[in-house]
């Protein structure tokens, strides 16, 4: 057992696991990590079963270990990690002992990172998942200072501590692929062209539910009176103001605003890792290309997880692996 006190927690820091799949028909959003690749990578690095992680926002987190000891790792983006005053590279494995103070702050890039312990965090679950859905208070709430964290079944796996992976390979590109529809015909043809030809900027209206994008205003020709229909992650929903809102992990399950397009699953997490004022370009692809991209990304991710698991072996292998990883990551990012 290891116990921690939260000394500082920025906004939107929550407990997330795989998410709560299969209950959208009851209005329950799936939630889950904003960057699923990084969340999964953390568990592969630690060799733990997929469980709860702390999703840390750019607001940062500082925790102190009150008792016990446990290994942990942080993945996702390129965050600044400080352990007992010493800087650690991001995507590192380290050990927390009684008296240790861990500080995580926004770094060079990335909006979300994942803290995973080699143990089991004591957290509430609902409908088979520990993921917090901000707003409903049905399964926990965002973490705040003075909250405590307890980890059971702690262990110190025989792992090399230090950086496992250089995050530079994962820095998202500005191109985001979309499939048009289901209501692209509700917009002027100029707006459908603008969506593909002009750049869009992520605004500060950015949370786990979605991010509002700013660019040329998308003009709706139809009346805003369509019956509400189910919406998925990645949907580019356009309310009357003409700015598309990309729906993310905590998206509402239905909506009455038209969707001009949907971000393909292979690019959704990259968009989540970008920051306000970052610029993106949309590239329209077919459903077939989107499915092919999902397959390529899945295979690349599997190889990547395999390698980061293996990279515990020796320095020589690690170096060899990092060359291999860079090739695979270019697949994930392609």
């Amino acid at each position, binding site marked *: 057992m290891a116990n921690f006190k939260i000394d500082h927690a920025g906004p939107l820091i929550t407990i997330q696991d795989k998410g709560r799949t299969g209950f959208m028909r*009851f*209005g329950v959003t799936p939630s889950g990590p904003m960057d699923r690749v990084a969340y999964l990578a953390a568990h592969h690095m630690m060799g733990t079963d997929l469980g709860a992680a702390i999703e840390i926002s750019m607001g940062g987190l500082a925790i102190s270990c009150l008792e016990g000891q446990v290994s942990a790792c942080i993945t996702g983006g390129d965050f600044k990690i400080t352990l007992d005053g010493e800087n650690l590279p991001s995507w590192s494995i380290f050990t927390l002992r009684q008296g240790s103070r861990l500080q995580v702050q926004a770094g060079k890039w990335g909006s979300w990172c994942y803290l995973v312990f080699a143990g089991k965090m004591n957290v509430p679950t609902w*409908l088979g998942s520990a993921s917090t859905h901000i707003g409903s208070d*049905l399964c926990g709430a965002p973490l705040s200072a003075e909250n405590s964290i307890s980890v059971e079944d702690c262990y110190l796996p025989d792992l090399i501590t230090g950086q496992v992976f250089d995050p530079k390979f994962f820095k998202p590109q500005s191109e985001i692929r979309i499939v048009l529809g289901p209501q692209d015909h509700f917009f002027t043809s100029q707006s459908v062209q603008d969506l593909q030809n002009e750049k869009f900027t992520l605004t500060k209206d950015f949370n786990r539910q979605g991010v509002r994008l700013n660019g040329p205003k998308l003009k709706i020709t139809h009346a805003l009176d369509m*019956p*509400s229909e*189910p919406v998925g992650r990645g949907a580019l929903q356009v309310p009357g103001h003409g700015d598309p809102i990309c729906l993310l992990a905590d998206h*509402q399950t*239905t909506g009455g605003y038209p969707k001009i397009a949907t971000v393909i699953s292979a690019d959704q997490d990259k968009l989540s890792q970008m920051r306000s004022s970052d610029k993106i370009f949309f590239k329209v692809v077919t*459903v077939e290309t989107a499915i092919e991209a999902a397959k390529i990304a899945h295979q690349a991710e599997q190889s990547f997880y395999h390698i980061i698991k293996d990279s515990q072996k020796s320095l020589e292998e690690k170096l060899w692996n990092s060359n291999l990883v860079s090739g695979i990551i270019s697949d994930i990012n392609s």
Partner: protein
Amino acid sequence: MNTYPQIKPIADIGLLIEFGQTIDVSIHAQILAMDQAMQDAPILGVIEMIPSYVSLYVGYDPLIIIYEDLVLNLKTLILETQKNQIKIQREEKHWCIPVCYETKFSPDLEELADKLDLSTDAIITSHSSAIYTVYMYGFAPGYAYLGGVPSKIQIPRKSIPIMGVRPQSVMIAAQQSLITTVTMPSGWWVIGRSGINPLNKSLEQPFMFGVGDTIKFEPIKECDFVRFEQG
């Protein structure tokens, strides 16, 4: 020329089977029949279905099922469902929900009476004498969209949503009514408070209503409401 149903892809994550464009009982019946047919004969790779007003959403995993195969499968199933006129197996339930419409619990009733040029009693009588149908869930956990608001009390939602509308609020907007389950912002008109929260998170099946169920509201007095809340 639009013919329904139409299958519309949503990137590589799902598709919508659209059965029409307007909210209508017979269109909704086709959606429920298709949802039922897909529950009776699950297709490997289909993650979930979400019935709604005019469409059925089908979420799938492209790593498990080939998109073209899924579409063929669904087209066959649509034809079978139409031919056999599949009746919903699930027993549709009829609910009677106690609602207290007294001033303390109905912050928008006076303003609504003004706007509709009706007495508050007339609004209450109208709201509580209609039979509502659960068309779909949406927006937030356990938010069941009820169709059937009488035309004389139909009014568009407020122009600006109100933050922090509390659970068990009974609200209306246009032809819809809804009982809130959690604290959320809402632009609907709050006209009463339900004696029951239709979401009980401690139950294994936390959602009280099934899509297709019917509901009637039963006005109760504040003293009964307090007794109700205390069990």
